[in-house]
């Protein structure tokens, strides 16, 4: 059978040549990624951004401190936090997803900071399943060209983007589209007026995960991202905090002064505000370290 297959496919020189060219380009691209390690600063969509972030963690991270949460904590972008931090907060995602990823990766940090703002958002089982598929998990670790962040379009656009940033030194501005801000703040207000419901499964998972990590010697802290002051004292904010505090004795980072920060839509910080908050965050984390060690 092999003889006949060979004679059928490889009688076509186009097919033979195409396979040779493909193998050559694929190998060269992998070598380029392994040797040059181009910094990737562009992702094509939110899912890819999240998945790449998760892959970076499970394949490469040695961070002592990991942040888990939603798109709110995700605003503390790469470069805003010191190197010992890894931000595993996922846009459209949840702290539970981040905690599960840490657990299954086996790469346990010494401290995990859990965002409390949208803590009852459900876990993304589909993403976790895709991330840890046995065959592709190991294959992608060995072959960087197969990792989502290394898609040629991402690498190419990142090269251009990084060049542009280096030449123009991106300015940090407080920019908010007022129409969108007003409309989305109104929507967020509706959301925050109501108490959290249907969260018992998520709460149970959170308890299990926190217990797991603490048994493994990992310290768990909670924190809150700043939101628009109009939302901070509404039912959902207060009720979530009350529920977490009633179940967990873990320490909290100092609460932010919501009035000091600007959001684009009531709950997501602008770049400049995220920059300032990340400094507040790391200062608060360091202070807790000092207290713990005393």
């Amino acid at each position, binding site marked *: 059978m092999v003889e006949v*297959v060979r004679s059928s496919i490889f009688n076509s020189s186009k097919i033979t040549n195409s*396979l040779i*060219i*493909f193998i050559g380009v694929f190998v060269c691209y992998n070598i380029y990624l392994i040797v040059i390690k181009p910094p990737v600063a562009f992702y094509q969509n939110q899912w890819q951004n999240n998945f790449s972030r998760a892959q970076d963690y499970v394949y490469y991270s040695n961070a002592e401190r990991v942040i888990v949460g939603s798109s709110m904590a995700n605003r503390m972008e790469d470069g805003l936090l010191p190197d010992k931090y890894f931000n595993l907060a996922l846009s459209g995602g949840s702290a539970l997803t981040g905690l599960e990823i840490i657990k299954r990766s086996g790469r346990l940090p010494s401290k995990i900071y859990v965002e409390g703002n949208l803590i009852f958002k459900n876990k993304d089982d589909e993403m976790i399943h*895709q991330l840890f598929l046995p065959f592709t998990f190991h294959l992608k670790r060995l072959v960087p060209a197969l990792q989502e962040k290394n898609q040629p379009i991402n690498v190419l656009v990142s090269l251009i983007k990084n060049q542009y940033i280096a030449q123009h030194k991106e300015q940090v501005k407080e920019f908010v589209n007022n129409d969108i801000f007003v409309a989305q703040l109104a929507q967020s207000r509706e959301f925050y007026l109501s108490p959290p419901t249907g969260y018992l499964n998520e709460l149970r998972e959170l308890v299990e995960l926190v217990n797991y990590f603490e048994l493994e010697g990992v310290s768990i802290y909670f924190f809150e991202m700043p939101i628009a002051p109009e939302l901070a004292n509404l039912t959902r904010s207060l009720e979530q905090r009350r529920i977490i505090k009633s179940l967990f004795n873990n320490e909290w980072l100092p609460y932010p002064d919501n009035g000091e920060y600007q959001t684009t839509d009531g709950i997501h910080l602008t770049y400049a505000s995220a920059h300032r908050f990340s400094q507040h965050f790391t200062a608060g984390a360091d202070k807790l370290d000092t207290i713990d060690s005393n």
Partner: protein
Amino acid sequence: MLFNSVPFVLLVILTLVLYYRRTLRKYQVHILIAASFAFYAWGQPILLILLVASGSINAATSYLIFSSNEIWKKKTYAISGVAFNLAVLMFFKYSPLFGQLIENIASAKAVSEVLLLIPLPVGISFYTFQGISLVVDMYRADGLHSHRPFYYNETFKKHYLNTIFFISFFPQLVAGPIVKAHQFYPQIKAKYLGEVDFANAYKIILTGYFLKIVVADNLNDQTFWMTYPFFESLSTATLLMLLFGYSIQIFSDFAGYSLIAIGAAKLFGYDLPQNFNFPYVSRSFSEFWTRWHISLSTWLKEYLYFSLGGNRRGHVRTYINLMVVMLLGGLWHGAAWSYMVWGGYHGLLLVTERLIGRWFAFPASAFWNIVKAIWVFTLVSVGWLLFKLPEFGQALKYIESVFSNGNMPHRVDVVAMIAIYSLPVLAYYGNYVLKSHFKTNLLDSSVIYAGMMFAVFVNSGRSSAFIYFQF
């Protein structure tokens, strides 16, 4: 089991190894049936029972038609066979729709709740239509009526095996192409490795995977922003680009799947009918339906439109027949009124085109051909909105947003990504036009195939089921 999954690739390889072994040659059909059952049962094992039951009843009724001597018996069996297939389709596919109707009209909530729980078996729209095709083709091939004899004097055991094979053959089982019995049965015979055109199958399969995994899946991650309520805060330009992107996506997704199915079937020695023939170059809506989902449109033409009289009973009756076929064709796509509206929309376009065509014709020139093609593409794309937003109200809001969101911010990133991933499809179409006029095929080159394979491996989008799986 998805075509774009490791288990599928392993299944095909294993089946090929067994299929072409000399010692197993007389069991080739059995091997393909076993592989097809494994393919179908992967996701929903319990629904294999329905597939086998459907195949069995179609085998029995079609054999009874063949073996009966009297016309009235043949007709009775034919009607029973068609009715059975339609009943299965209506029960499993349209129960939620009936449930909603019952709830609205009779307030019988208990009944409607039960109906809403009935599962939708993957591929049911496709294999029930193939069952109907078998029964009708057998009735028409009785020597008295037929101009297309395709059946040979087989035993019931052989016929049963061939029918189960015809209904369940995995490349086309869950999303087509819809194969007609008179196209498929004559192909059922021993297959030899030396007869397989591996090079051609490789090109077809690679093109299919490229369209699906690289183009459609990546576009899917961008057209996510068409869903409600996200589209409400997007600019007019972004919304129009998203609609364009969705047109490219749905073509790439479905045409990609069909190519993989056709290529995979070719590996086993079976030729499936072409399902897409560059539909977006169509210069009229009737031409569009000879190029888009060809297997469905020819099935509807052969088994429904002609049965209603086609265009042989005057203009008014032709228009009615067209509308009936398109409304039912729309409803075939899903148990929601929006699909029927979509079908009616296309029916209206076809009828209007015919009406205008009786008194007016555009000049035959390249310029007008381009204008007509753009016109057809635009209206077809607007129709796709009902696929992306099956809730009719949301589709209307989308159109409203196109006209009112001039001042909203642009999503340059989304627009750019749609442009990038649409380029290969534009090149694909451009090459087709060049090939048609100048006999030049620029894409049939080693570099292009290597590039496509490279993109399939390193630039795939998030894995998603084929859009037509839901039908």
